[in-house]
């Protein structure tokens, strides 16, 4: 298993997202932009759901590089208190149980669950949930 990109997640277990802190203003963004205006900054591991939707069709390739087979997925934004709101897949939760304001924690999920050597992407799941 490998990460979809370098510098996105910390090496801890469980991991956290790596955002960027603007040196001049303290403003936090995700992901950390290239260049020297921002320095890498590990984001809080837990937050609350800000908004969401269900992706009901397979996105066009390019740029999507997931599997040909498609199952709808939940995608939304999670507010990491006092820092930033990040866009993320939602995992290990039934669509009908998703509610704005619910407590979530970061995890990693495979982009293609059936792949022999899956690529890992970030997701948030209900606190304590398991795949």
């Amino acid at each position, binding site marked *: 298993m490998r990460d979809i990109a370098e510098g996105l997640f910390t090496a801890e277990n469980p991991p956290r997202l790596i955002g960027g802190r603007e040196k001049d203003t303290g403003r936090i963004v995700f992901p950390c932009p290239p260049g020297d205006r921002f320095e890498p900054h590990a984001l809080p591991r837990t937050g609350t759901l800000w908004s969401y*939707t269900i992706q009901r069709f397979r*996105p066009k390739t390019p740029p*999507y590089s997931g599997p040909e087979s498609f199952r709808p997925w939940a995608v939304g934004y999670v507010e990491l208190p006092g820092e930033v709101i990040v866009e993320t897949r939602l995992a290990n939760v039934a*669509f009908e149980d998703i509610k704005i304001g619910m407590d979530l924690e970061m995890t990693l999920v495979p982009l293609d669950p059936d792949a022999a050597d899956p690529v890992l992407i970030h997701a948030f799941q209900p606190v304590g949930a398991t795949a």
Partner: protein
Amino acid sequence: MSGDVCIVGIGIHPFGRTDGVSGLDQGVFAVRQALADAGVEWPDIQFAYGGSDAAGNPDTMVDRLGLTGVQFINVRNGCAAGGSALFSAQMAIKSGEFDIGIAVGFDKHPRGAFNALPSEYNLPDWYGDAGYMVTTQFFANKITRYMHLHGISRTTLGRVAEKAFRNAVHAPHAWRREPVALEEILEGAMVSDPYSKYMFCSPAEGGVALILASEKKARELGKPIIRLKAAAMRTRPPKSFEVFAPSIEIGGGTATATQIASAAAFEMAGIGPQDIAIAQLQDTECGAEIMHMAENGFCRDGEQERWLAEGLTEIGGKLPVNTDGGCLACGEPIGASGLRQVYENVVQLRGDGGGRQVQGDPKTAYTHVYGAPGVSAVTILER
């Protein structure tokens, strides 16, 4: 220059899908119609601004229209391309440099959702690889948050689409001109919750041309005097929430380019939202129309629930919105979309709307465009 800039000629190539006719030729069609409407010839046109996002360089239409040596400037400004062409044309006349000119916009997009790549938006490749480069996700996330904060129901979203298709029945330039029942809209195949397939507009084709003139020239032409009282284009402020955003600052989604473009336009025109008789508002999807009613100052957040239930934005309502069916029924050829709204308002202010005509002799009309990458353009017309 004394007096206002006036719109003296309008032309449109029907929106939708026209196989075998290029986007540029749809623009040429619209220009010829606008010239005939104004009662002028192409050599009378002193300047042109042309907008197209994906259908070629607008200035090449001089091949078709005549090599008069006319000044022709191309405008490429995302979803505000048409609005920017109109704004520029207006300034050219206001400056006193010219008496008559044209703003034209056209486009021809492939079927399906816009196919954006991360590199075009200064985003890392993983963002596209993982399936985030999907505009519909953004629109759905934005309205889900808004519905949660302001108590908007999914039925209200459905009513917006129902109204669009019903209005378009009477708009010859519209694409989807069959009424669709509210239940069918609500139960249609889901694209991105809470939106079904009926609740999103589609990329499309079409062309629109508007001939602008000084008030003095307009009087010579003997056309009804339709004054362009305001044209404003603005980019996004801090704390906005735009398409393809891997992160948003805390408190984001509360400020928009629309709010500041709208405020600027009302200030230029010297009137307020309560003075507007007709509004064409960006309706990329049903929720956009809902949110833009408030962002443009026509109601407060949350009041849309009652407005739609009571039919206040119907053709016979207090503030008719999207009288030709908007983007939902016309589709969205980016370069032409904002100019279509102005075309529709001129039709309405002249009283030429036929089955979709707003009654009561409307004197003021408003247009609003919003789109990637966080741009908005507003116009106010008065007769």
